């Protein structure tokens, strides 16, 4: 057992923390909110130049092939900095799927564009009736002479409005397979919208979308592997947000005065902050575990750790976010202060890629298996 980071990881973490603290102010956040697709091209370029977009791209495809922990270190800093550019949804998640799929070698050009920041991707796997379960898939891939015809509906495909290609899951016979669909393909239509807490998404209609045989990336195991990696990284992102809220709240309690004293002298508020801190540290332990296991070849071990982390952090981050607003009082409710924006970011985290309820069920199913 050794929980030290390598010196490379410490450098990576340092640069991400510095970027988030100095390169990405609250004003930049508000600017990014108004940028097309809520992604400021200048910021995206910087993120690419740091090499962070290449972290989930295999070395064989010209990427860095970093561990999940490497990526999580960046994500935590981005979460702490309220960076809303689609680091996970537009790059890490789809890259991890492709890297884990049978067709990995065939997509090097696309992955190269992704790593350089020239293209973004998105994954469309959720359906209304399936909630968070990638195996609940009613979208159909009908094989024909030219390849496959995709038909069905997906909801809330994060970052889809910004993507050059979508990775779409569809039922191919008895299997659920993954298909790479260029955004401009006939029959593919998006209803785009901004998302709670920042970023954009789309509901996706596939109305007889014809793709080549080559478009088939692989089967659902690649999606599951990519999803687990994305979730572990997303938990690290949430951890950053929790830490930021803890720091802002404890600082506010030190300075804000009521009844002639700093409100941090009130025992009830003190204990609330202690609870926030304890939840933050407990969360960190499971996030470390999830990032360590996300790269495991043992899918059971991987799922167990990832679902435990997501189930725990979903609850802990909700508590931290709610109490941060409560302890700030009125000012915590306003758009003017960043606290409320972290609150929304963490609220969205609780839902995306599966909520606590879903992951407790999955954790239990893995434990029972």
């Amino acid at each position, binding site marked *: 057992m050794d929980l030290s980071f390598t010196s490379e990881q410490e450098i990576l973490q340092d640069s991400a923390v510095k970027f988030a603290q100095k390169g990405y102010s609250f004003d930049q956040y508000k600017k990014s909110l108004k940028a097309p697709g809520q992604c400021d091209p200048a910021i995206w370029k910087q993120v690419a130049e740091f090499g962070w977009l290449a972290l989930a791209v295999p070395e064989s495809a010209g990427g860095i092939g970093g561990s999940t922990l490497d990526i999580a270190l960046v994500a935590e800093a981005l979460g702490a900095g309220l960076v809303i550019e689609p680091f996970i949804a537009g790059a890490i998640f789809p890259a991890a799927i492709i890297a884990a799929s049978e067709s990995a070698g065939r997509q090097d050009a696309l992955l190269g564009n992704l790593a350089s920041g020239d293209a973004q991707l998105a994954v469309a796997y959720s359906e209304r009736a399936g*909630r968070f379960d990638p195996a609940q898939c009613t979208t159909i891939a009908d094989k024909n002479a030219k390849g496959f015809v995709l038909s069905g509906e997906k909801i809330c495909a994060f970052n889809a409005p910004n993507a050059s290609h979508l990775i779409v899951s569809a039922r191919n016979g008895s299997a659920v397979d993954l298909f790479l669909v260029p955004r401009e393909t006939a029959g593919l239509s998006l209803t785009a919208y*901004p998302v*709670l807490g920042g970023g954009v998404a789309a509901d996706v209609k596939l109305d007889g979308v014809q793709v080549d045989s080559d478009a088939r990336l692989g089967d659902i195991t690649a999606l599951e592997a990519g999803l687990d990696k994305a979730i572990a990284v997303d938990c690290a992102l949430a951890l950053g947000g929790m830490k930021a809220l803890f720091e802002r709240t404890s600082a506010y309690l030190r300075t804000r005065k009521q*009844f002639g004293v700093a409100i941090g002298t009130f025992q009830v508020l003190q204990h609330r902050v202690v609870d926030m801190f304890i939840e933050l540290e407990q969360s960190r332990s499971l996030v470390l575990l999830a990032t360590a296991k996300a790269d495991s070849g043992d899918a059971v071990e991987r799922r167990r750790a990832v679902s435990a982390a997501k189930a725990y952090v979903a609850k802990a981050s909700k508590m931290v976010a709610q109490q941060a*607003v409560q302890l700030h*009082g*009125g000012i915590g*409710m306003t758009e*003017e202060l960043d606290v409320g924006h972290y609150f929304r970011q963490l609220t969205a985290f609780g*839902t995306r890629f599966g909520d606590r309820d879903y992951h407790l069920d999955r954790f239990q199913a893995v434990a029972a298996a």
Partner: protein
Amino acid sequence: MNFDYSPEEETFRQEVRTWMEANAPRDPSGIATGMRIGKETQFAWEKKLASKGWLAYTWPAEFGGPGFTPVQRDIFDAERARAGAPSVIPFALMMLGPVLMKFGTPEQQKRFLPRIASAEQVWCQGYSEPGSGSDLASLKTQAVRQGDKYIVNGQKIWTTQAHWAHWIFCLVRTSGDGSKQQGISFLLMDMNTKGIEVRPIVTIDGHHHLNEVFFTDVEVPVENLVGVEGQGWTIAKYLLTHERTAIAGVGDSKRQLRWLSETVARDPALKDSPHARRRIAELEVDLLALEYTNLRTLDRMAKGHSPGPESSGLKIKGTELQQGISEAQLEFGGLQAMPWGQDVEGEPVYRAASTRYNFLRACTIYGGSNEIQKNVLAKVLIGL
């Protein structure tokens, strides 16, 4: 002992229900969330209530209200919520009205009460200031007497619907002597007076309900003082403790929970989930406890007593439950609750959920945070 309504009360309920069904504004998404409803819809609705004589539904007949009993008021509010109609803007109707009835001069009563009851005048409340959140008495806005006028300077914050209001009632400091409570007075101001400026505050639900209100050398006639100079704190306390019937929010919570459970029942992903059904059952039981605690308070009030100890938890439990229901709406909504600030196809309760969830974080903060409520109650219970 019985919890049954009298036949007269049941008849009254039916009358209100029928009227609500015919007259409640049809704007499901906006009304249901209770937030997105616009100024025009709200004002038109209040006019309609006024023309029926039901806008000032908590007022006695002698001051132009319908003279409902406490139970009738509760029934009225429950039926209003059941129909999905918005609640009335409370500042004039629930707060200023009773204050004028008790502390106002006959001239003030004649001047303001009919205009309020007829929906002609909408009011907002100037209590909080930037430096005084829970510590209300530390307020700094000054009113200096000059002849037959007060000159008001200062700032209020968190002023709900100030951008809609025609008038504002304010706590102002008229003296720096004595305890900080002693120097406070209660003043009425026309929002059109020169020197009053309203600046919007956008909240984390993405909407504009709140404002800052700035006062720069605002001239207010002395006849706009309610009570006497220095009586403001007494009036403020009266105002805060006066209206308890609707504080628990039972009617609106019932409607929100029913809306959710009906949606879940047809949601293919949740209708068979034991966890979703359990959570709804837990909320229903909590709501039932709140409802019957509220009825106990009503029973006491109907008998002419002041609310008993059971009523002290109504605000705390009521707001926790509002938040709990909105949390379930958000979480059951799942990905369908993710779209933000833009209408998308889907179940209305899920679509409204994230806005409601954000908005309702305020309900444990405003009107004396729940922490302050507990401090006050602890003083009563422990006495230290």
